[in-house]
């Protein structure tokens, strides 16, 4: 590029000097590097090898202890639970071939396949599920996701986790080696998709106990039963995933190998993609402009929703309904998604994302039915609400603190929202407080903030995963929102309406309207998308709405 030549010129001198000093090492490498980048494209198509990057080390490969996207991604690739998510969030058979649900929807009986084995040759049985699920809720394990994913779903999970009952009381038992019976606390229509989640993966008791402290710390202290196995794990550096020849459905798996390097910096990753070292890369807003029109670009929509949380307990102003309504309307979200995020994200009009769940009978999208509950922007209306609010508050100036953190474009986001709010709502001062991520979590927990941008991705495919965020005193509420009607509606979806899908659906629709239109509790911002460059010969990688982000089981290279 023309203008960067300036800079190049300035640094040229320094560079040449160093290169002269190091030219010894160059030659041997340039040859291998050159042939590599050329040869890769053709060879790999025959080889079925993917070269990818991961943005951080895998924190844990123990299904009970895993808490984050990276861990669930690779647990999902190397292990298999009752079911697996296929295209469009469809549930595909895993270790379970099928299941029956009792009349009252509380007892689920899963029939397991008999040809599934662990990587040490042991068969995968119903006992493995029982052991693993008990382990996840056992207070001695100290799992975070165990009680979160199973509490209130599997019978007695919460009581066991709080030490009030024995682990043996957990509502799961192996009727025989290949029949698993699960008792639920409440009817849970979405249990199928929940059972695909990493926390519900089985574990081989003998192996786990034999490994003790060492379990899941290295590639060879884990047992696999999924389409792939991890064959090499150099912590913080790279790891290798290879096809599992003993997988029950190994015939459907084309991909032989995935090489993963840990690279944290976006521009480094883009540079590696440019030299052909990796086959897929995520683009930041800055790079999307540069690659506009490139046919390798793919926009991946995610059902992850971002919204502005307004804490009603700390600031008198935010306790005022009209202030919150004004804030909902004051920010131009279109400009935000188009110019600042610039990654395909779209403005959100509600809490439940688009293309996530469909009406059980008509198949219509949730978002389409409920529509945009708040317009993209309406500064006039925002001012009206604002003036009304100022009158009610009896003041002409309001100061509100906004939490920022250190994520990508977090700083720009904070600056943009600050400017939008301040310029639309006269008398409003937004103070930005940037803190490290962990501190933000603490402040959120202790409700020691006024405004913050927050995001949520689903844990299972049901509106409830979003809607139960804001029930009174829910662990995720943390903003002092409470509405009896809302709570009742949400409770009814796991209670009396649990077996009436259409009525249950309507309850969700109504609850969302209460939350956003009536109470203006949150201000929806956008539904996230990722813009990535993919080598065009990669086909069949499924992007999941919940659980592991990518499904490589059916991927192949043309």
């Amino acid at each position: 590029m023309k203008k960067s030549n300036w800079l190049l010129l300035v640094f040229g001198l320094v560079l040449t000097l160093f290169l002269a000093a190091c030219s010894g090492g160059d030659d041997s490498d340039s040859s291998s590097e050159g042939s590599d980048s050329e040869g890769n494209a053709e060879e790999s198509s025959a080889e079925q090898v993917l070269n990818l990057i991961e943005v951080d080390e895998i924190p844990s490969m123990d299904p009970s202890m895993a808490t984050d996207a990276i861990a669930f991604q690779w647990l999902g690739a190397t292990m298999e639970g009752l079911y697996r998510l296929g295209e469009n969030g469809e549930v595909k058979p895993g270790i379970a071939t099928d299941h029956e649900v009792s009349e009252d929807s509380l007892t689920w009986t899963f029939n397991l396949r008999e040809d599934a084995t662990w990587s040490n040759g042991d068969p995968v049985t119903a006992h493995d599920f029982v052991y693993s699920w008990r382990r996840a809720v056992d207070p001695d394990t100290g799992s975070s996701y165990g009680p979160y994913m199973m509490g209130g779903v599997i019978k007695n999970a919460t009581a066991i986790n709080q030490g009030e009952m024995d682990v043996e009381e957990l509502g799961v038992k192996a009727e025989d080696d290949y029949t698993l019976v699960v008792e639920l606390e409440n009817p849970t229509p979405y249990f199928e998709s929940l059972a695909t989640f990493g926390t519900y993966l089985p574990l081989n008791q003998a192996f786990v106990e034999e490994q003790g402290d060492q379990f899941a710390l290295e590639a060879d202290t884990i047992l696999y039963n999924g389409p792939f196995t991890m064959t090499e794990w150099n912590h913080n550096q790279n790891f290798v995933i290879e096809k599992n020849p003993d997988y029950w459905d190994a015939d459907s798996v084309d991909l032989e190998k995935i090489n993963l390097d840990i690279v944290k910096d976006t521009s480094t990753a883009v540079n590696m993609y440019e030299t052909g070292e990796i086959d897929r890369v995520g683009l930041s807003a800055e790079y999307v402009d540069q690659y506009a029109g490139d046919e390798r670009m793919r926009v991946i929509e995610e059902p992850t929703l971002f919204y502005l949380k307004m804490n009603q307990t700390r600031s008198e102003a935010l306790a005022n309904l009209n202030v919150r309504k004004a804030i909902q309307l004051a920010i131009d979200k279109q400009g935000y998604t188009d110019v600042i995020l610039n990654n395909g994200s779209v403005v959100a009009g509600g809490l439940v994302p688009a293309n996530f769940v469909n009406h059980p009978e008509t198949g219509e999208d949730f978002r389409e039915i409920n529509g945009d509950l708040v317009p993209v922007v309406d500064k006039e209306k925002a001012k009206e609400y604002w003036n009304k609010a100022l009158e009610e508050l009896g003041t002409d100036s309001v100061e509100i603190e906004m939490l920022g953190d250190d994520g990508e474009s977090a700083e720009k986001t904070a600056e943009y929202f600050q400017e939008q709010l301040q310029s639309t709502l006269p008398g409003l001062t937004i103070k930005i407080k940037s803190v490290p991520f962990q501190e933000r979590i603490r402040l959120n927990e202790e409700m020691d903030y006024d405004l913050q941008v927050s995001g949520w991705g689903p844990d299972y495919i049901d509106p409830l995963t979003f809607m139960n965020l804001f029930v009174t005193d829910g662990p995720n509420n943390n903003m002092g929102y409470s509405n009896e009607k809302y709570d009742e509606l949400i409770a009814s979806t796991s209670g009396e309406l649990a077996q009436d899908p259409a009525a249950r659906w309507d309850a969700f629709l109504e609850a969302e309207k209460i939350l956003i239109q009536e109470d203006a509790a949150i201000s929806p911002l956008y539904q996230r998308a990722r813009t990535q460059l993919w080598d065009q010969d990669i086909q069949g990688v499924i992007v999941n709405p919940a659980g592991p982000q990518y499904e490589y089981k059916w991927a192949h290279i043309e």
Partner: protein
Amino acid sequence: MARYILQRLGYMIITLFIIATVSFFLMKLMPGSPLGAAQEKLSESQLEIVLDKYGLNDPIPVQYYTYMKNLVQGDLGVSFQFDNREVTGILLDRFGPSLQLGLQALILGSVIGILFGLIAAVYHNGVIDFTSTIIAVLGTSIPSFVFAGLLQYYIGVKLEWLPVATWDGFEYSILPTIALAIFPLATSARFMRTEMVEVLGSDFITTARAKGVGKFGVVFKHGLRNALIPLITIMGPMAVSLLTGTLVIEKIFGVPGIGDQFVNSITQNDYPIIMGTTLFFAFFFILVILIIDILYGIVDPRIRLTGGDK
């Protein structure tokens, strides 16, 4: 000499003990919780269970006692963010790449830097002096991430001479080494020049010259030794900071080093790793300072190493 070193080693243990104590309590002051995003999903009572597991619910003096007791036995505990993994193992794992990079950069940077400084001083105020000053100044005035990014883009992507990033053998270490070496190079060149100009102006050099010792003979025989003292002072802490890893370079070049791990554990509130790394850094630092103080005595006999009491 032996007595002096023994005494210093004794101090070292006391210093490390104090550092362990101070940083333990500093750690407790650090806001945020080590449990990360997962705790957002937990109810109050579930949170208690997890905190109990890590011993974070004990009174702080108890936690301190436990930590110090384990420390004496060489046990740094297990990491919070990498479930169940030993801190000692993580530190050893990640120190390797940082050490290699740091050593390479230190050697490359200081050797070239000292040469630059020497030449600049000999041709004081000449064109060479000016050029090397400019290079040295540029070296310290371009933010390292900009320099590293440019290196990677032009050498790695445009010219494809060297691998762009990751850590997979010697050729992968060349670009990060260069990026890392620019700072020691610039610093040592400047200090070297300053000191050499001064040394070359002193009487004993004039005497030596008068006795007929050649220009470069003087520089190497008499000048270098005298100019090295302040350089050693400045190079010591620099060596420590290079060898203990640098976040920016490690992040940009995908090096699995300790600098990156350290910053990561700070932002994750992974107390055992922060503590372990702190103690490790401190140990390293004190050791280097001890070596420097001994080197002083060797390079310049005028400095007498004295113990606490004469």
